């Protein structure tokens, strides 16, 4: 249960094609993350799978059944929205019971499933409250509870953590990952935050202007990005790109090197520069170094005793160098 297949799916709004023909396979039990900058079509793609938007062309199959023209309710998918989208006039219990009521489940089943979901999500003490009386994290858990009780073929998450504060976001990220391990149900998750994508996904789908740039495991994307866009999008801080004679030395139009793959020395190295801004986090040190190729970001392990204005030598780890041709494709 929980295989989703997109075949030549397109979406147009009027004359604007936001998603050109696109094929994608989402396997059973996979945690798939759609990631990309805002406006790349990732939420639209999720809404097409959910049935909240009609496709302009192509087919969507869920568990081998053609679901292209099925209404959202008939697709056995559950969705968690960015704004939580709880029913404000219902208690937490009634919110979670709503999909079961719609499915005409009997009261005993409803009660059992609510108790179970509340236990998994630590909501037992809040069942009688209204959504307005809950914190952001609790509301998000209610939204997830409402999705769990349906026992869907797949869960769809539309940027579910972006309304939460940073600390809570890290917690909820863990909770969702744990939930996936517990339920082993297919999950499709949309985010613009590449850290969320890297930490949660079995498989990442990088989207750019409605086009799939690359599909792969987080480490595949990190190690061998197929093009400059993916290379720049995955990884934090961003990969450094250098063009011109330095790139030509490596027979490439552009070379890319990640901040963590550059050695730092105050006495010798390949590239000379001056420290602009230095960020000392204790566990890491981020240096923004002015060089003859422009600004290079470097990440040093632990505390690096360099500050603004200091001279520094940088040495890229050549084994970790990425090369791109003039079209931005990896060589």
């Amino acid at each position, binding site marked *: 249960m929980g295989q989703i297949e997109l075949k030549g799916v397109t979406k147009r709004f009027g004359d604007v094609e936001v998603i050109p023909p696109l094929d994608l396979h989402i396997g059973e039990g996979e945690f798939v993350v759609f990631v990309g900058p805002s406006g790349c079509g990732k939420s639209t793609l999720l809404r097409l799978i959910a049935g909240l938007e009609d496709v302009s062309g192509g087919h969507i199959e869920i568990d081998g059944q053609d679901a292209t023209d099925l209404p959202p309710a008939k697709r056995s998918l559950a969705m968690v929205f960015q704004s939580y989208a709880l029913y404000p006039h219902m208690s937490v219990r009634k919110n979670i019971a709503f999909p079961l009521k*719609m499915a005409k489940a009997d009261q005993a089943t409803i009660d059992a499933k609510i108790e179970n979901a509340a236990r998994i999500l630590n909501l037992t003490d809040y069942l009688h409250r209204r959504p307005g009386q809950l914190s952001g994290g609790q509301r998000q858990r209610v939204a997830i509870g409402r999705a769990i009780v349906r026992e869907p073929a797949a869960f769809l998450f539309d940027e579910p953590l972006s309304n939460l504060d940073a600390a809570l976001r890290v917690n909820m990220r863990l909770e969702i990952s744990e939930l996936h391990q517990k339920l082993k149900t297919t999950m499709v998750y949309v985010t613009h935050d590449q850290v969320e994508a890297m930490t949660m996904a079995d498989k990442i789908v990088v989207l750019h202007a409605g086009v799939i740039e690359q599909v792969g495991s987080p480490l595949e994307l990190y190690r061998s990005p197929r093009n400059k866009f993916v290379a720049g999008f995955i990884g934090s801080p961003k990969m450094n790109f250098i063009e011109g004679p330095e790139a030509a030395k490596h027979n490439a139009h552009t070379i890319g090197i990640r901040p963590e793959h550059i050695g730092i020395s105050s006495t010798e190295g390949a590239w000379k520069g001056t420290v602009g801004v230095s960020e000392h986090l204790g566990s890491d040190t981020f240096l923004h170094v002015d060089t003859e190729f422009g600004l290079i970001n470097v990440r040093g392990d632990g505390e690096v005793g360099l500050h603004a204005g200091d001279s520094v030598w940088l040495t890229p780890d050549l084994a970790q160098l990425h090369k791109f041709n003039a079209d931005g494709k990896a060589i």
Partner: protein
Amino acid sequence: MARKTSNRRKLVLTIIAWSIGFVIFFPILWTIILSFKSEGDAIKTPLQVLTSHWTFESYGLVQERSNYFRHFMNSVVISFGSVILALIIGIPSAWAMAFVPGKRTKDVLMWMLSTKMMPAVGVLVPIYLMFRDWGLLDTRTGLIIVLCLMNLPIVIWMLYTYFKEIPSEILEAARMDGAGLRSEILYVLTPMAVPGIASTLLLNVILSWNEAFWTLNLTAAKAAPLTAFIAAYSSPEGLFYAKLSAASTLAIAPILILGWFSQKQLVRGLTFGAVK
């Protein structure tokens, strides 16, 4: 010092506000005063009116001559009936326009509003003839239908504005949760829009209650509401001020009381879309 000035300013503003309020309320107040006078006293100069004898005789005479309660019931049935019918039609219409707008939705809304700009008398003859042929003249059903049609544009506009404030994600969540169109409107949209629906109901009940053109032209005796009851006292043979005032007071009292208790909802209804 600053405090003193602001207090004086407050006093002046309060006096002005109360004066304007009094001027607006004066006709109603005078009507109520006249209703407690005898027919002879009611036509005297204002000072004499105020100092003359107070009596309930006009109320007695009005009730004797025409059955107030029957007119009252007609008014209740017609105004609530027409608005409830309008809500039954208006809620799904406003849902469609607010959540699944098409290219021409704005035009449809404007067109509906434009029908309110046409003088009612323009369609009196065709509607009168249709009502005659269909046996709807002087029936409550007929008036419910015509007043529903009159208020439908306002009902749909008001509901549309309220529905626009409801995040569409909540309705999409309901759809994902397996709700069909009927369940979505019945269990999710309507309960969330209750304040909006309540003020729509109240405002339109008041409009229907006071509607005089159609109620006077399409009724005779059986279905005549309170507007016709008042009109019966302004006769060609001369005005009976005291009795007319008593009838008017009786006619506006129920709606005045309803309005008083639902002030908050009404203000919200009248300023809909303005706040938030």
